[in-house]
């Protein structure tokens, strides 16, 4: 496929829509400035007409100028209306291939292909976006890219189709429902608590608390709480359906060198991640899911850009029982070990974890007790919760070291476990503050390349000797120097 090809003309409509969306605020501003008198109206009409015609023309031109071709193991894109640009992407540098179908594309039977490389060019989009090409075309590119990465089968592209695809994971209906139910259910809990508190009207004299300042608000406390609650429930139900639509038909297969993830009911997406491009694997468990023994697994790849985070952090198993992860992924991601036993941080670190969680909350508690007197004591409840959270953080922190793999576990709000291969770590950091040194503790942080910037894992207050152990494990010359 060496002759330059154009995208489907539906792209013109897409571009016009996007440009008008960008301009809409200017239009609105102009509307308010010039919408005075007849002259102003004429000016407004003229300017809008010119702008719209300009947008349409530029969109058509940019469609005409946008061509792509596959040549000499490179994807070559040429585009630009006034300034002509060429972008050549070596196929073996491609980090991931993301195929999605928006509603417009679907109407024409087209798909959108986003191609990510490791280079963070600082632009908003992926390195290359083919907004609308036919499905066959997309499959052809996919196969071509796969073949380019694996020269042994390059002679015969057709052969690739015969490689058996193993289904790694397929979401079941009950999992989909559980996934939707447990994602972001915190808001509901909070508003339920609020509604409950409003029932305590008899015990807590809100009137005296707010003393007429918001008489109305106080007397209508229950209604407000109810409204808030209804709002939360509505938002939650909408989010629930959104999640369901997004993750319906979720399905992961493994081809010879790639993981292929497809998902979505209305808007279909298909993401291809080369196995060798996986930088790290992460398990996230929010509190509800952790309590049920579930978590979600995502792979992090080096592709992706500032606005397209999905290109770099891809959900691999949206919801899975933790003890089955090894069973599901173990045979496909053979490099990774998911059943590590984690070494916890030492007991003497606990007090530091608790103190750290107190930093912000203690002044608030003190202030509210000083000013609100007895009722300020209620803030002690928050203090208890925060302390509990600090203890949780302490209990969850841990690390584990295999021959070629570093696993870190820590909690921010959700519990995160990250598995990183030694040769994917970009840099490793050891930090000790004065107080940590007195307790023989240190913080360990590992950075991997994920998407636009870096990400990784950090475990605070590990035993100093343990950090040193990981440090010399990572050092390529520690053994020589010893």
């Amino acid at each position, binding site marked *: 496929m060496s002759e330059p090809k154009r995208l489907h003309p539906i792209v013109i409509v897409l571009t016009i829509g996007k440009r008008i969306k960008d301009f809409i605020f200017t239009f609105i501003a102009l509307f308010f400035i010039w919408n005075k008198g007849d002259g102003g109206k004429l000016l407004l009409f003229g300017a809008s007409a010119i702008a719209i015609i300009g947008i349409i023309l530029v969109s058509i031109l940019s469609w005409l100028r946008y061509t792509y071709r596959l040549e000499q193991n490179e994807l070559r894109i040429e585009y630009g209306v006034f300034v002509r640009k060429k972008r050549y992407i070596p196929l073996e540098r491609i*980090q991931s291939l993301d195929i999605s179908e928006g509603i417009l594309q679907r109407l024409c039977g087209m798909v959108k292909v986003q191609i990510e490389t490791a280079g963070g060019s600082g632009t908003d989009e992926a390195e290359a976006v083919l907004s609308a090409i036919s499905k066959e075309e997309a499959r052809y590119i996919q196969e071509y890219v796969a073949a380019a990465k694996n020269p042994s089968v390059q002679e015969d592209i057709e052969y690739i189709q015969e490689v058996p695809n193993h289904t790694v994971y397929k979401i079941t209906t009950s999992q989909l429902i559980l996934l939707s139910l447990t994602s972001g259910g915190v808001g509901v809990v909070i508003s339920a608590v609020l509604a409950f508190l409003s029932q305590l009207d008899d015990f807590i004299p809100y009137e005296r608390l707010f003393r007429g300042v918001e008489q109305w608000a106080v007397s209508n406390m229950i209604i407000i709480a109810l409204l808030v609650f209804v709002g939360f429930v509505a938002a939650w139900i909408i989010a629930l359906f959104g999640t369901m639509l997004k993750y319906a038909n979720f399905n992961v297969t493994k081809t010879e060198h790639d993981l292929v993830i497809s998902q979505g009911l209305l808007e279909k997406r298909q993401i291809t991640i080369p196995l060798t491009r996986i930088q790290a694997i992460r398990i996230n468990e929010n509190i509800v899911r952790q309590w049920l023994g579930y978590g979600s697994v995502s792979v992090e790849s080096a592709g992706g850009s500032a606005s397209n985070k999905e290109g770099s952090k891809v959900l691999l198993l949206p919801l899975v029982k933790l003890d089955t992860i090894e069973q599901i992924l173990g045979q496909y991601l053979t490099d990774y070990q998911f059943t590590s036993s984690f070494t916890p941080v030492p007991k003497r670190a606990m007090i530091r974890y608790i103190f750290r969680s107190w930093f912000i909350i203690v002044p608030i508690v003190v202030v509210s007790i000083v000013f609100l007197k007895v009722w300020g004591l209620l803030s002690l409840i928050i203090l208890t919760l925060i302390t509990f959270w600090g203890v949780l953080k302490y209990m969850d922190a841990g690390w584990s070291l295999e021959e070629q793999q570093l696993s870190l576990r820590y909690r921010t709000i959700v519990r995160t476990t990250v598995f990183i291969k030694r040769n994917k770590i970009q840099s490793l950091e050891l930090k000790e503050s004065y107080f940590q040194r007195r307790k023989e503790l240190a913080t360990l942080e590992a950075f991997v390349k994920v998407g636009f910037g870096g990400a990784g894992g950090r475990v605070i207050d590990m035993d100093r000797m343990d950090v040193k152990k990981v440090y010399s494990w990572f050092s390529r010359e520690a053994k020589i120097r010893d």
Partner: protein
Amino acid sequence: MILEPQKRISAKALTVWRISGAIKIVISWILAAVAIFFLHIFKGPFWISVLILGIELISTYFIIFLFPSLRWRCWRYDVRDEEIELQEGIFIVKRTLVPMIRVQHVDTVQGPILRKYQLASVIINTAATAHEIPALEESEAEELRRFISNLARVADEDV
């Protein structure tokens, strides 16, 4: 046990840091003078002026004298065949290990003060992070840059 990195940065860095500290302090003194002036005009409480003066005096000592020398004493680095190791920090000691094969590119940066003293900073970039070695001798920085980029090029391991 791992040895700590051995190399120190140029002793001239001290002078540079003192100068740039002095510039910052001069600016903060000007701001403080303006603040005290207005406090005087609007008959603000006297103790605030005293407090501002006190803070200014202490930070002058800290920023021009204490911090640069502490910082210089704490800064160590080592560039070896297979990795770069950095150590910095006064209160929080931070040690960083960057494998040579992960280095993407190396920059040298030179501000006006650094240039006057023939110094330069070297910034080592990996795909995910950036690490700065401040205030090296110009020749050393240049040599280091070349050394690192040669070594980094040898390693043909991709992200």
